């Protein structure tokens, strides 16, 4: 349903340098699947999400969403795409026009893409909002009169208005409190059940949330996917040192943090993420990697290695790490 | 760094060319006949025609613009009908006076504006804050020519505290011209009395001229200080136990001064424009008075020259401001 093929997205800067936000990403989402995309800040997750909807032009590669070719698409194709693929952003407050009522914002997509008007439109909007748990009384409120969770529900209603086949969720809960996050996550889970054919790309840096919601997960580092596979597989048996470090760092609500996961002995990382302007040569992770070897990792860009059923990792030593 | 300055200078030159287009267009929409104007009231028709040909006024407009620009580059700014002298000479006489006045005025505005702004911010909503803000709003709203007149008549004539007009007393010797700025020249010549006198002459016009800038500086500085004082790094500094003197005087001020600096640059330009009003009131022989007189005499070459000169001065000021910005703010410096 959503396919990225060797996607590259580069942003030229005023100084003449180039930010390689996405640098050769291949990812295929089957219909009905929810795939998590995790990685540190700046690794290019949002850029992929926006590019999938044609909101950012791709530098090279291909994107197919809902059966449409997004890269280099005509205006008409893009318009068709709008009703097939939708996106929900991280900050619900910023993604609603402060001067529009909630119902007006939710109606936007319907006005633009359907002939619904007047009473019918109003009823449809009310129905949509009711479905995400916002009763009548919120219809004519302005965004700042709603709580964060309520706003995010409105955003979800807006995205669902057009019955999209593909839904990109860009950290939909990271601006929310845990209790509100739980509400939204629950709702999304129910949505999965209610609409089994909908494909979702779930962007997050919260591993726990990904584990809860996704069937598959892809781990990004500096514009590249370093590991990808079924959620349980990747969490229980990670094959890339970066994934391991990420899992080791994930705080778990446990009294004894040492007892949190099956694999506690992963090395924690030192140092900072390199700038995406001058990505290190070879494996982008080698500057922080505990197992990196000179002459290999800083020279050769690792290829994807299959390490299990539908499980791949881009590390020269992915197969060796299995034992660990 | 120097590459940046060069780039900016090139941009400034380009902007000046654009400005020349604007002024040239403005001057040539004038309904009058420039040859006729230049010839003077008693001139015969032949004299007018001769001047027309001499000045190339019979040529098509684009060609004339080309001539105008090439003349500009050789420093020939034309001749003023009103003073009968080459504009370049007039400018050389009047520009230093104006620069001196405006520099003095902006100094006044800065020296008083920043502390007042800080004081108002620190004492937010206290009586002194209200008083300072009243000064600030009035400064913007008072017509400076009117204020100048009132100051002149009250302080200079009624109370006889200041000289009425001009740059120096009648019998004071003009200091030997080096920069053309009397105060500077007087200091260079070691003549303190002349220096003091020149300063006294500038005080009232500078006061009238600086009030709007003072007001603007107070407002911006106050707002910035208020904002900065609420910033996290100030909270952190306080949490570290650093005293209010250092927090206000260094930690907050250095951050707040940056937007104020931009405002100062803007105001410097406006002040240059304001001299048109204030120099007339105080009969201060500068470029503003020159422009005002030229304007009421439809004397275009001086106006064009003044516009270009002020534009150039303004752009250079902004360049300096940007460099100051870089000097004060390491983030900006990093981008250079």
């Amino acid at each position, binding site marked *: 349903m959503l396919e990225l093929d060797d996607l590259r997205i580069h942003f030229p800067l005023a100084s003449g340098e180039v930010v390689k936000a996405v640098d050769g990403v291949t990812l295929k989402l089957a219909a009905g699947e929810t795939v998590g995309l995790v990685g540190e800040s700046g690794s290019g997750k949002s850029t992929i999400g926006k590019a999938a909807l044609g909101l950012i032009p791709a530098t090279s590669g291909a994107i197919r969403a809902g059966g449409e070719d997004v890269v280099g698409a005509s205006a008409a194709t893009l318009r068709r795409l709008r009703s097939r693929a939708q996106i929900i952003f991280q900050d619900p407050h910023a993604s609603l026009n402060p001067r529009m009522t909630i119902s007006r914002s939710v109606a936007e997509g319907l006005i633009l893409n359907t002939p619904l008007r007047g009473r019918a439109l109003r009823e449809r909007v009310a129905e949509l909002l009711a479905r995400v748990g916002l009763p009548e009384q919120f219809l004519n409120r302005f965004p700042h009169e709603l709580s964060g969770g309520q706003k995010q529900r409105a955003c979800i209603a807006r995205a669902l208005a057009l019955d999209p086949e593909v839904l990109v969720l860009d950290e939909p809960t990271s601006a929310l409190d845990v209790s509100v996050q739980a509400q939204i996550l629950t709702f999304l889970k129910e949505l999965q059940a209610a609409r089994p054919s909908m494909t979702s790309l779930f962007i997050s840096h919260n591993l726990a949330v990904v584990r809860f919601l996704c069937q598959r997960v892809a781990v990004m580092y500096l514009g590249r996917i370093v590991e990808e596979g079924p959620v349980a597989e990747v969490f229980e048996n990670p094959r890339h040192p970066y994934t391991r470090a990420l899992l080791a760092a994930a705080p778990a609500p446990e009294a004894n943090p040492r007892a949190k996961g099956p694999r506690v002995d992963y090395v924690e990382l030192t140092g900072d993420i390199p700038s995406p302007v001058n990505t290190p040569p070879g494996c982008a992770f080698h500057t922080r990697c505990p197992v990196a070897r000179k002459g290999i990792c800083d020279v050769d860009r690792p290829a994807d290695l299959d390490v299990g059923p539908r499980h791949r990792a881009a590390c020269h030593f992915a197969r060796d790490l299995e034992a660990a | 760094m120097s590459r940046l300055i060069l780039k900016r200078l090139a941009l400034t030159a380009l902007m000046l060319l654009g400005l020349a287009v604007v002024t040239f267009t403005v001057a040539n929409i004038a*309904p*009058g*006949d420039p040859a*006729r*104007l230049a010839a*003077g*009231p*008693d*001139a*015969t*028709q032949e*004299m007018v025609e001769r001047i027309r040909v001499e000045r190339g006024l019979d040529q098509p407009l684009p060609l004339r613009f080309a001539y105008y620009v090439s003349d500009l580059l050789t420093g020939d700014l034309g001749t003023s*009908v*009103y*003073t*009968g*002298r080459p504009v370049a*000479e*007039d400018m050389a*006489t*009047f520009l230093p006076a104006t620069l001196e006045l405006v520099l003095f005025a902006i100094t006044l505005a800065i020296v008083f504006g920043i502390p007042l702004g800080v004081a108002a911010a620190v004492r937010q909503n206290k009586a002194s804050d209200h008083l300072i803000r009243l000064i600030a709003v009035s400064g913007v709203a008072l017509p400076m020519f009117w204020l100048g007149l009132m100051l002149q008549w009250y302080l*200079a*004539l009624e109370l*006889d505290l200041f000289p*009425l*007009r*001009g*740059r120096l*007393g*009648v*019998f004071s010797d*003009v200091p030997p011209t080096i920069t053309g700025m009397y105060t500077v020249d007087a200091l260079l010549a070691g003549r303190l009395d002349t220096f003091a006198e020149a300063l006294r002459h500038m005080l009232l016009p500078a006061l009238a001229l600086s009030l709007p800038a003072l007001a603007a500086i107070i407002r911006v500085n106050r707002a910035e200080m208020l904002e900065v004082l609420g910033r996290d790094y100030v909270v952190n500094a306080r949490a570290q136990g650093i005293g209010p003197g250092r927090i206000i005087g260094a930690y907050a001020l250095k951050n707040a001064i940056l937007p104020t600096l931009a405002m100062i640059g803007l105001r410097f330009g406006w002040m240059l424009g304001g001299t048109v009003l204030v120099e*007339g*009131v105080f*009969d201060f*022989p500068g470029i503003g*008075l*020159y422009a005002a*007189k030229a304007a*009421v*005499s*439809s*004397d275009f070459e001086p106006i064009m020259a003044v516009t270009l000169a002020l534009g150039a001065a303004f752009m250079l000021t902004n360049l300096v401001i940007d460099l100051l910005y870089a000097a004060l703010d390491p983030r900006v410096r990093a981008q250079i």
Partner: protein
Amino acid sequence: VEKVDGKFWMVIGGRQAVSHVDPGQSYDYAIRMMTQALYDGLVKYEGDPPQVKPWLAESWETSEDGLTWTFHLAQNATFHNGDPVTAEAVVYSYQRVLNMNEGVAWMLSDVLKPENIKAVDAHTVEFTLDRPYAPFLSFLPWWFVVNPAQVEANVVDGDFGKAWLATNEAGSGPYTLEKFDQGTAYWLKRNPDYWKGFPYEDDAMGGIIYRLIRESSSQRASLLKGEADLVTDLTPEELDAVGARNEIEITSTPALTSFGFKMNTQGQHMSDVNLRKAVAYAFDYDSLIKIYNGQAKLQDSPFTDAIRGHVDVEGIPRQDLEKAKEYLAKSAWPEGGITLEFVYVQGLEQQRQMGLALLDSLKALNIELEMVPLTWPNMVARAADPAQSPDLMCIFATPVSTDPDAVAIQYHPSSHGKYYGSHFLDDAELNAMIMEARSLSEWSEREPIYAQIQARIVELQPEVFGMMRNRSFAHRDWVKGYADSPIRMTGEVDLYPLHIQAP
């Protein structure tokens, strides 16, 4: 006033900058005031009524046919650098101006060829005119003699020494140029060795500073504070106010200047003589006097009082609404209902007030007035073309000589295109009379013709004849020797006799 090295320096506060001090280039009152002090002419105007007095020339005679004029120069006259003033210098100076064809050249250029000026001997100059020209002598006071040696030494690229003479002098006059501080002050040092001496005994007079004070209120303040000793161009109210003070004297003498609202006799409205008359009878003339607080006198002829041959013309219009309406009824707009354009000099407060007075008066005729202030150069430009010249135009006109021809010629087509010719009057009868009168040299023959001319002009009503404004100056009481002459330009003062008596 200030004592510098034991001598008094007098400060004159004037409004007009001195753009240069070259007697050959353009002139205005400030330039003339300076050149008059730095240079000598063959003759000089003095007194009231103004008379042409011998100066460098001690005597002169005219040939029978009125074509040749011979001048005998004073023997003792010297330039400031010590060179004697010779006939050669006079020839050089006149030829320079005629060849440059700038400034005062227009006064003589159509009757005098440069090659017809000859030095007969060291102290005799001879001018041969192309045709008899009675007013010839009356123009000579504005022609000054420069030192050829100094000028020639400073000629650059055949510029007649213009650049150098702009800020330097090469004269023989009572003052030398001490300092030329453009836009601020101009210092004239008294030349104690002036060949003609001074009309006062006192040797304490050091010099005169002409200080630029651009606003009348500042001028007045400077006078009150003693920063200036003599000021020009005060408003009538200011004159009254300062005159009330003991330490200040004001002088107010009639000027040669005439004033009128020139009407465009070739324009859409004003070509109708009845409308012109209607406007002339509707105007409230007394307001002119009131505007000047009494320091003015109504004109009773197109010629002002100081012009030779002036007569009071009977029937010159005064306000009479009955008559105004009668004339209006005869015009093309018997009901009024038109708007006339009234152009005046921007910033001249009195002209603005006159405009308001006219506007008020014309309401009685149901005529509206659109007041348009223009800069002087723009006004001059509009006055050059009958199609553009406005219905009414405020014009002060100061003739450069007291000869009646200087005024009469303003109503002749040869003046069309000049600001004072903005009425575009073209009357065959009048034209003939003007041409005849200027070619005669006997005053007794000319006089009756000029009386007729004045009457004819009034009849044609090319303008609303206004008033003669007094020339008014205010000075501190220690300023002595002030002598006015109506011939001088608006703010011009004869510096020669001025001196200071120790306060």
